[in-house]
């Protein structure tokens, strides 16, 4: 029995379709026959053109969006909408601006009922882990974008999530900071046992980080192709992108992605014309 439980993948989306009904009554199909599996401990990246349905996919896993048909399972069970094992890093800055760094990082444990002292001790460990010692009492607006992302990662990882969902988490950062953050993420992930779904529109980022890359079609989103990334770990993202193997994979996937980006682009041209 227990063997069976551990067998079940971390996340399963089976033939999922989802429509949005706008207030005017128009319906928009965001996902169609979408099937994806994330194994336990696996790092999956999703790439696709803007507006194709990537965020919608993550919201299915957290239970914010409900599928019209098909199944969504987390750890072998249907999503409940309040799974404490899920961590989420938002694209927009979602730190609490009125809380200091320490209290931002300690938010999860405090919400979950850990005594104040224990939560702060744990938070200090994570602040040290992300290299922000000395900034405990700073407020988010007093930090750089990269530092705020570190706080966000500490805030998420402190809850020891089994499933980590990330929605273009580094897209607002400059290129150098982004690469540093990618390495930090891989470092934190390697010492956790989290299964990750990382949404990005940056193909290189996806390949550098993931075990498996899903390419989505321009909306309605369905899986166009999935690629295994056999690059060895531990990876150093700043160096890995110059390896011939990386470049070869990158070229292959780009062939697929380019078509979808072009379709998506043509649509926006049509819409604005």
């Amino acid at each position, binding site marked *: 029995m227990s063997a069976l439980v551990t067998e079940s993948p971390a996340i399963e989306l089976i033939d999922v379709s989802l429509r949005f009904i706008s207030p005017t009554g128009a319906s928009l199909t965001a996902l169609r026959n979408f099937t994806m599996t994330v194994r336990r401990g696996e790092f999956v990246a999703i790439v696709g053109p803007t507006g194709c349905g990537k965020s919608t996919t993550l919201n299915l896993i957290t239970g914010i969006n409900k599928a019209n048909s098909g199944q969504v399972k987390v750890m072998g069970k249907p999503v409940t909408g309040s799974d404490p094992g899920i961590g989420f890093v938002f694209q927009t800055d*979602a730190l609490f601006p009125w*809380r200091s760094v320490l209290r931002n990082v300690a938010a999860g444990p405090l*919400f979950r009922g850990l005594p104040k002292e224990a939560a702060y001790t744990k938070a200090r460990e994570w602040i040290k882990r992300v290299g922000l010692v000395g900034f405990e009492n700073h407020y988010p607006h007093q930090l750089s974008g990269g530092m705020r992302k570190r706080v966000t990662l500490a805030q998420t990882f402190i809850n020891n999530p089994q499933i980590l969902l990330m929605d273009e988490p580094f897209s607002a950062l400059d290129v150098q900071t982004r690469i540093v953050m990618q390495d930090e993420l891989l470092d934190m992930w390697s010492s956790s046992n989290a299964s990750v779904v990382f949404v990005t529109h940056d193909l290189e980022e996806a390949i550098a980080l993931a075990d498996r890359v899903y390419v989505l079609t321009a909306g309605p989103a369905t899986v166009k192709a999935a690629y295994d990334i056999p690059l060895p770990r531990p990876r150093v993202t700043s160096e890995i992108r110059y390896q011939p193997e990386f470049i070869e994979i990158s070229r292959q996937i780009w062939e697929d992605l380019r078509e979808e980006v072009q379709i998506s682009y043509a649509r926006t041209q049509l819409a604005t014309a």
Partner: protein
Amino acid sequence: MTIDTPISANGAVHDAAERAAAAAPRKRRQLILALRLAILVVIVGGWELASRTHVIDPFFFAMPSTIVQQLWTWIIEGTSQGPLWGEVLVTLEETVLGFLIGAVLGIVCGIVLGRDKLLADVFSIYIKVANSIPRIVLGSIFVIALGLGMQSKVALAVVMVFFVVFANAFQGVREADRSLIANARILGASPLQITTAVIVPAAMSWILASLHVSFGFALVGAVVGEFLGSRHGIGLLISTEQGLFSPAGVFAAMIVLAVVALAADYLLTWAENRLLKWRPPSFADVRG
């Protein structure tokens, strides 16, 4: 500091330029102060002069010197109703009580209705209606129902404060950042924790701004209540002076009220800055 120390040969020139730059805002402040004083002197002096030369009738408009005299008499000898500070205290007590009760009710109702769509939809119509009634008129009802004592003034102050604070708290809750709420939920917050840890702090700048305005409204409520019928307070003092055809007395009472209002405003600004110290300075300075 060490970086700022000039090390180049023309460091002295930099230094002088910097000092000149630092002196400019100080000069500007002095200029503003001087201009403000000048305007005060012109207005007060002009008023005094116009009254003394009977360009305006001092019987109706008083003059600064008689107003100051009246204030002085009140401070030294007390008013017809008792010592001045006693009267101020009565009005202040009514104002503060009304302010506190109205603010707490407004904040609680604003947050509850802001969080519950159904309640908001049901009550919105009644709040609109109640809000459109000129609330000062309620003062008469309160005096009839609650008597000449403190309760009727407090009740009027509460009504004056409640709607302003309520509207702001409600709006603040509605404007709370969706992604912060989503983040709190993911991090494990219960609905109650979302309210206390996200909604309330997010609405706080709205609420504090409304508290700022509404203290003045509470004062108006208390004074008008006293005006309509009471045994003590600055409002009664004004009403008495009006009955005596003493404009100097009315103006003197006005000055007393202005001092109270300014002191309260100063205190509220201080409290606000302490409570919102997490905000970037540019944000906090807007009111400054």
